[in-house]
């Protein structure tokens, strides 16, 4: 091996399969591009609707709450829904992908910055996405326990929904800060390896 001519010959000799028509590939490209855009929009819409539903539900629960403490807690949950919608619209859940027509060096740096941004965002999820509604639920539960005790009823049954909320929020925290962050860190490491690592 391997003078330039032989390398060129080998390189260009790769079979490329039956050529696909440009019109056919255009259809595929448009479908893929639309699918990607639709996926992002649908996910954001789904999350906003869920947050608005949370707001509506907990506003109603606050209205029916037995005392000021539980009302304050449930109103905090309702406000958290609006806060989450604001944060998603303002900051987005994902950094926009870097422009693909940059030079390769610029693109790879931009890709690294995107990973860092995304990891930072996921590590902050506990503050802007999980903590406000969880605090509201804690306060709401405390209010209900107080109201029950005032009526001579036991407070412990309220611990059951509280345990469910805690497990649910713990699961969400794990999905975001452990699972998703680990996956992104693996991709980031692979990018660095691709950029720097000569495995030959």
């Amino acid at each position: 091996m391997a003078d330039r001519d032989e390398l060129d010959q080998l390189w260009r000799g790769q079979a490329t399969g039956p050529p696909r028509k440009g019109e056919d590939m255009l259809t595929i490209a448009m479908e893929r591009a639309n699918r990607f855009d639709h996926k992002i929009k649908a996910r954001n819409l789904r999350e906003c609707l869920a947050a608005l539903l949370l707001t509506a539900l907990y506003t109603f629960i606050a209205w029916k709450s037995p005392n000021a403490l539980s009302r304050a807690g449930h109103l905090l949950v309702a406000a958290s829904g609006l806060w989450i919608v604001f944060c998603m619209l303002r900051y987005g859940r994902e950094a926009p992908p870097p422009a693909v027509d940059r030079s390769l060096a610029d693109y790879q740096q931009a890709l690294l910055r995107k990973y860092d941004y995304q990891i930072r965002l996921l590590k902050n999820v506990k503050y802007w996405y999980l903590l406000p509604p969880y605090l509201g639920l804690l306060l709401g539960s405390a209010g209900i326990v107080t109201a029950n005790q005032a009526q001579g009823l036991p407070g412990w049954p309220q611990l059951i929904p509280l345990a469910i909320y805690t497990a649910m929020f713990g699961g969400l925290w794990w999905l975001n800060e452990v699972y998703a962050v680990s996956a992104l860190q693996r991709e980031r490491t692979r990018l660095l390896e691709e950029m720097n690592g000569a495995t030959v």
Partner: protein
Amino acid sequence: MAENAGQEPRAAFLRGAFVRIYEQYAPALERLAGAYTAAREDREDLVQEIAAALWRALPGYRAEASERTWLYRIAHNVAISATVKQRKREKREVAPELPLELPSAGSSAEQNLLAEEKRSMLFAAVRDLAAVDRQITVLHLEGLSGAEIQAVTGLAEGAVATRLTRIREKLRQAIRARETGDGR
């Protein structure tokens, strides 16, 4: 690109531009995909991903760069993103090698077999290079000039030439190692 044209003529213009560019560069894009992934279905998927990125980027093309260097930037950037997202990398690395050209009527089967082996080794060795070296190698083998490679990669022409010398040596060593069974 037809700045003053209305929406419909512009859409038709973009479609036409896409079809022309894709048909002109389809074999080169397939070879480029082969430098990132070995399995046929992954290559096809990568080419489609590049085509989707081309379609999204086309309205922003301003002819400041040559069409060829612009397309190669997109193709390599999409390929590198796809590579780092590859979850089953190890599995794909042992996937079947690229299908090779069928023997031509006049050539002996032995010669073709040898060429096939060498081609497999070349593509495998290119896939093993670090991303920047792989990109430079592909661009070089596709016939881009030093200035064009600079325009695509952002590396100075002199640095490209130096790297190419080193890459050739690496490829030679890698292929030799594979031939003697010391490689992966």
